């Protein structure tokens, strides 16, 4: 037809009402279904295999495989117009942003104030404790599973108020590994933050460093599952940098 009667988004359409869509053969669906069953059994095996802290990433990897199988084949994303895949991936990116920044905040709450001994600490006010379980003998000092240590006042500070005249403040280096971020700290931190952005939320958990546990004494280091595999390159770089005290003198300059 010389003058096409029907247009779609500015482009003339030859046969307006025919559309051909990809029809997946049945054996392909069955193959995908069997793969999914196998992966489910794999998740089961992973949980009993006692991989310890690595079991979370492995379980997530298997779940992502199953998820992508369902999305690509059962929902025909593989054969559809690329735009639907783009829409789906954009929403995954926004979820990743949501996870990464929130977990980044949760895991670095103590970065700057470690020096002041203020721990990011969960504690429950007295009434709530009294409400929850009637007053029995206070739990022993480091109880298993009770992550928040019984409410301990922050470590005694060298307080100048009690009549002792204030000594000269220690040079950051003398105070052990200087951990204050210097003026250039931001560049490296932000770059590692961006690198971590791709790393997904889970890997932002604080790495266990025995040094920290030793220094903290009774502080139950967060050696829970999923931590021992350590932060990703981004967070690792941040932690190494912060602990190396390379820029500690700058903080000294700042601090005076």
């Amino acid at each position, binding site marked *: 037809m010389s003058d096409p009667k029907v247009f779609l988004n500015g482009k003339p359409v030859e046969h307006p009402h025919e559309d051909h869509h990809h029809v997946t053969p049945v054996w392909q669906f069955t193959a995908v279904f069997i793969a999914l069953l196998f992966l489910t059994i794999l998740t089961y095996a992973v949980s009993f295999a006692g991989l310890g802290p690595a079991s979370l990433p492995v379980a997530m990897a298997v779940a992502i495989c199953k998820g992508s199988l369902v999305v690509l084949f059962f929902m025909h994303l593989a054969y559809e117009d690329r735009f639907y895949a783009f829409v789906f991936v954009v929403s995954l990116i926004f979820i990743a942003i949501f996870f990464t920044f929130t977990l980044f905040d949760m895991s670095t709450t103590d970065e*700057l*104030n470690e*020096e*002041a001994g*203020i*721990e*990011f*600490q*969960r*504690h*429950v*006010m*007295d*009434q709530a404790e*009294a409400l929850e379980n009637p007053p029995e003998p206070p739990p022993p000092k480091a109880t298993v599973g009770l992550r928040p240590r019984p409410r301990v006042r*922050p470590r005694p*500070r*060298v*307080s*100048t*108020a*009690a*009549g002792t005249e*204030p*000594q000269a*403040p*220690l040079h950051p280096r003398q*105070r052990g590994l200087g951990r*204050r*971020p210097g*003026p250039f*700290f*931001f560049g490296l931190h932000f770059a590692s933050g961006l690198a971590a952005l791709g790393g997904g939320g889970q890997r932002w958990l604080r790495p266990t460093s025995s040094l920290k546990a030793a220094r903290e004494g009774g502080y139950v280091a967060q050696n829970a599952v999923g931590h021992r595999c350590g932060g990703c390159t981004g967070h690792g770089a941040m932690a190494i940098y912060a602990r190396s005290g390379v820029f500690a003198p700058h*903080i000294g300059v*700042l*601090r005076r």
Partner: protein
Amino acid sequence: MIAYFIPPEKLGTPPMSDSPWELLPTASNHAQSLDGLYILLTAVTGISFVLVIGTMFYFMWKYKMKSEDDKTSPLTHNGKLEFAWSAIPAIFLMVFFVWGELDFVKLSSPPADSIDIHVTGQKWYWTFEYPGRPVAATTEVEDGEIAPLLVVPKGQAVRLTMTSKDVIHSFYIPAFRVKKDVVPGRYTYVWFEATELGDFPVFCTEYCGDEHSSMLAVVRVVEPEDYKAEVAAATTLEQGEGESLEQFGEKVYKAFACNSCHNTDATRKVGPGFGGLYGKSENLADGSSVEADENYIRESIMEPNAKIVAGYTPQMPSFAGQINDEQLNALIAYIKSLK
């Protein structure tokens, strides 16, 4: 633990600035650099505002319609100009960011040798615990009005370790340019070094309920030499000579903010009113009833959840360990005197 719903106008602090147009007093080490950045921001944004709106007015005047069919310019874009007006603002923004970030890092890392004062925010009043002073109450009597008083020495770093007992509050001292939310369930902290003597108001800047706008306190900066004496004076709560037991009881009543929940007449507030309480028989939540005598009042102060009056919920915090015996006797005497 002293507070009273201070109508702000009675707070008695010197006005922060004489005229609205004068800048705030710069009374802490942070204030200097922050005000510098504030002035730079005002200058840069002011100039860019004048440039943009000035050009707009000029175009409005020059290109107003002369006749129905006068020709207009075919200009649709100009790559160089568009790049310039993206890059230049970006540079200024980076300058603001870096200066702001450096100050923020300083604001967030208190020196190790600072005085550590515990601040507790509670629905509608502040409590300050000085190191080495048992009594958490600090009072500052100003013609009968009591405000929580934070005494700090001049020229010395002070770190406030803050937590809240119920909802999120926020400790804000405008004159020192410091502010931090006081979050229940964790410690947050703020540090400063006061550089000017005098009294400065403290505000709660996170909405926390009915009396959010009366949750005020006073920061008093004193010379370092008489800092200890001031703290001692502010945290003692004894019977002054020539003061009757009931008068001292009333001071204790206000010091421990009993009035934030109990009225001195018989009307209900958050808790039951004290008017005519002594000798009355109270029926309790569990159906039994008890005669309100001394040890009932004493027990309700020490373990408030033991006997709950019918129709009330167990919200009262326990005062055991914060109130000593003379204060308790005076308080009971005062409650007995209420009709």
